[in-house]
């Protein structure tokens, strides 16, 4: 390849820079939106864990349901992303079917969370 490289490939910053460059050019728009949602859920999990170490997990049910809402949403999102990417697809299911399964999983998750929220 004859792309000019301004950063040293072998250092940590080099790896991060080249990753970011590949990511922003190669991935389609839809997958980027899904990644954004996953990142948002992950940040929510981090915030809740931080709050829990500060104050303690007193209403245990509420703590569990908050964490599971965010973490579960993130995981289900990642599963759909794997299905939609032709390189990482793991079952012979069409994209629409994958999306309906995604919706069903999210609805079940949110019902459980609301019931357990207490």
């Amino acid at each position: 390849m004859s792309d000019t490289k301004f950063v040293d490939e072998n250092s940590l910053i080099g790896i991060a820079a080249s990753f970011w460059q590949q990511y922003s050019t190669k991935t389609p728009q839809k997958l980027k939106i899904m990644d954004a949602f996953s990142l948002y859920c992950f940040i929510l999990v981090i915030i809740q864990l931080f709050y829990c170490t500060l104050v303690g997990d007193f209403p245990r049910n509420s703590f569990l349901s908050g964490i599971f809402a965010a973490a579960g949403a993130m995981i289900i999102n990642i599963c759909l992303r794997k299905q939609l990417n032709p390189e990482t697809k793991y079952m012979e299911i069409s994209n629409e079917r994958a999306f309906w399964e995604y919706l069903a999983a999210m609805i079940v998750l949110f019902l459980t969370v609301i019931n357990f929220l207490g």
Partner: protein
Amino acid sequence: MIKFLILILGIVFAGTPYNQKKVLVLSDNPAVYVSHSQFFNLLSKTYRVDYKNIQSNTFNLQLFGEWQYDHLVLFSTTNDLKVSIQELLDFYDSGRNILLLGSTDQSKYFRKFLNSFGLDMHEYGSSVIDYFNNIKGNHNIVTTTNVNILKVDKPVAHQGAGLAMTPYETFQVYGLVRGSETAFSGSNLSHNIIYVGATQGRNNARFVSTGSWEILSDEYLNNSNLGNFELTQEIIRWGFGQSKILKAENLIHRRLDSDDIKPYNYRLREDCYFSIDIFEWDYQKDQWIPYVSTENDVILEFVMLDPYYRVPLKKGQGAKYELSFKIPDVYGVFQFKINYLKPGYTFLKIAEKITVRPFRHDEYGRYLVQAYPYYFSSFGTMAGFVVFLIAFLLNK
């Protein structure tokens, strides 16, 4: 008609000597009936007394499994009793009271009998000597004012041997009349010498023993400077179960804000109200009167393996002792326990079981401020999901 006659007879005989309790007096020496005549007068006023000789065969403590007498007065002798010690102890275990008048030359039988009650007699031939508190300079006749539990105002005279006990009083064994500070007997010093000792068993039967006969004999009872007459009255009353008898009844526990008595179960952190009536028997008025404890010392324990509360009950109206408190944050099977072991009074041991349940599914707190981040994150993911769907589906 027959029923009516029986009713009339019952009413007539209710107050007569046929209803009184029977006391058996056993002694070896007929001279006792002369020298202790006042004592027997006092006994006969409230009891039916049977006088028997210790060695005779004409009395049975027990006949076909039923005890024939309610109380027992024993004058100790140098010989053994026809009745075995075990039968006397069974008599005591059945709740009946015994008064033992000892003497320094009593036989081993009586010394062993005394030992079963936590008391011990001084050695053969010993007698208590006091050079300061005595009568007419005769240092063998000693007086003391150290009287517990019984109410005696004047000094009490004693002649003869004393009893011994552990130096401190337990909740069961006490020294009713103890030696004055300057008394001694052989190697025993004043704080160890007991003239009249008592034991109250766990079944509330009372055993009183004196160190010598003479403490209840006429020559001291007739002396109005001494307190022996009052002591005799008090010994008869206390020893035979007429004074300082307590009774607890009417135990109520309920939630503080409701009127259902003894609900099926309580919940954590509820307010609970407990009350109990304690009565004391008044022998003068022949009825139960409310018991007044001076030191606020009827203590209620709220126990599940360990006491969670141990609080004195407050005196309410009449005979009521009551308390309201908050059930702790623990669920399980608890007991209300009262263990009232005041020296001289009958033991009050009460236990009442309740259950405390945890919160029901819908009794927990809702919308706690502490849980706001979790509420926000749950609904936040759902909102984010909706936003994501819109962005995803409308994207080209």
